């Protein structure tokens, strides 16, 4: 009896806070869903009245939601494009960029693949279709099978910018929904290669990456990413409509605090080096 009445009053409380407009919605990058959820959980544990909803859908979906005033925070694993800023100003929305964490993209190989390291140039050759056999990379004489993310993914865009230098992916590149699907595909495919978040624990091998053909291979470890030596790294952003106020401002401060950054590190991302990286930037 008391149990159910407590549950009901809890529900009423939830409804009340929802009506009071204290709900903060966070939407966007699939890479950052887990991170956003971790932050939201911890923040809600500290602030009982706050209600935070976190959903994914891809960076593009988050941006679209921000531009349509459908979310308070857009989590983005890439910067907004000039076109998106243009569209935002047309819709009288002023996206404020907040750098919230660092992430690196790992290159996945099958565990039985003898290739250990690849240069950025080789990766570009592989993904644009110029290099088609593992033999050219010191591996077996077999065609390379390319796995990629679908083009709504921020990781897809980052990889295209940093590795492909904005060239198109080869048409043979197979696109899969989600990082987990890419890892799964590579884990089952001896001749496969894929890319995605570094935080995913998996049964694939992470290739070492050489920034240039002659430089030393860098493995995607925490230290190497934090020091900026691993070449396929990126910042993870929050975009809000103008300077956050009230609950949202407190949430932002929490995320950028040492506690918030520790949570990011625990979730498998990389904390911001607070003395190096800018916190917010108005575009």
């Amino acid at each position, binding site marked *: 009896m008391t149990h159910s009445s407590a549950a009901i009053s809890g529900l009423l409380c939830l409804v009340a806070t929802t009506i009071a407009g204290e709900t903060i919605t966070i939407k966007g990058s699939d890479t950052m869903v887990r991170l956003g959820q971790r932050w939201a959980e911890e923040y809600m544990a500290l602030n009982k009245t706050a209600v935070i909803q976190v959903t994914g859908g891809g960076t593009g979906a988050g941006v*679209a939601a921000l531009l349509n005033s459908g979310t308070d925070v857009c989590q983005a694993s890439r910067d907004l494009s000039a076109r998106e800023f243009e569209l935002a100003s047309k819709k009288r929305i002023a996206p404020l960029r907040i750098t919230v964490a660092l992430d690196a993209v790992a290159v996945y190989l099958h565990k039985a693949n003898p290739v250990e390291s690849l240069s950025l140039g080789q990766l570009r050759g592989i993904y644009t279709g110029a290099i088609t056999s593992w033999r050219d990379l010191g591996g077996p004489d077999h065609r390379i099978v390319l796995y990629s993310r679908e083009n709504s993914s921020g990781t897809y865009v980052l990889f295209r910018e940093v590795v492909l230098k904005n060239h198109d992916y080869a048409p043979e590149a197979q696109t899969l929904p989600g990082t987990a699907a890419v890892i799964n595909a590579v884990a089952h495919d001896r001749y496969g290669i894929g890319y995605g978040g570094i935080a995913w624990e998996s049964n694939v091998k992470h290739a070492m990456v050489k920034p240039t053909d002659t430089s030393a291979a860098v493995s995607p470890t925490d230290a190497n990413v934090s020091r900026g030596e691993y070449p396929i790294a990126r910042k993870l952003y929050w975009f809000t409509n103008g300077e956050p106020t009230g609950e949202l401002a407190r949430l932002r401060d929490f995320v950028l605090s040492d506690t918030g950054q520790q949570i990011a590190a625990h979730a498998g991302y990389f904390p911001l080096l607070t003395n190096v990286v800018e916190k917010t930037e108005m575009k």
Partner: protein
Amino acid sequence: MKPLTFKPKSRWREFIGEKAISMSAYAALVAIFLIFIFIFKESLPIFTDPKVRQEASLDRLFLKQPFYEDSERLWVWQPTSDEPKYSLMPLFIGTFKAALIAMLFATPLAVLAAIYTSEFASKRMREIIKPTIELLAGLPSVVLGFFALIVLASILQDTFGLVFRLNALNAGLALGITVIPVIFTIAEDAMSAVPHSLRDAATALGATPWQVSLTMVLPAALPGIAAGVVLGFGRAIGETMIVLMASGNAAIVSGSLTDSIRTLSATIAAELAEVVFGSGHYSVLFFIGTLLFLFTFLINLGGDLVLHRLKERLQGRSS
């Protein structure tokens, strides 16, 4: 014998009941119509908006294009490239390949199962087989897609030594499983609907059960079976989740059934979440939706017409 008596209902209650039922029927009709109008309206910029037309005019969608200077003319689907490329041909080819494999796999199995169930199975077997196959239709496609992604793909690759693990064959076979119950149910109904007077006549002339089923029942039910195949084809073209998970989604133009494919429906599913409202990419995705709507509508309409004609024919003969 006591004559059956019905208690007369009041007129206005009957009137309201009748109107409520017809209203809900009209509501369904209007909903379908509005959905089509919406999808078509969103794809209109391809025909009207000069800015969109520059990126995605009809000949850019359907004809081979030279995308860079001196490069050969190609069909390429790269909508998020610096220079967006919207050739629909790789998607048509992919959709057709998947549907073709699904039909080649499902049609013989479903028709044979229907022959067995309606002609030879004991009543008890029939009551086990029919609901079981029809249960397949209720299987969530995401489950089948997952099965194809994890299990079927590895089996096919190991058995045939395929280069691509996720390919048209893999997706087509999984798709076939969803098509089987569609064909089976309609084919079985069509064969069971062949009047007993015809069977009895054939048996009286000395035909064996095999002769009755293959030379008499099967031809009589053929339009029904054809309708089942056509409706199954419609299902195979529109199915999204399985092909999204199991086909690899690479837009390749080739005739090989073991290459990866990208289908129309999976393209919408993968890309619609990202597009900016009102952009060329957005219009093209809705244009694909319009095409899919038209395809499945025409296919289903054709299947229904054939079924309708079969019913008339069989009923005409038996009376």
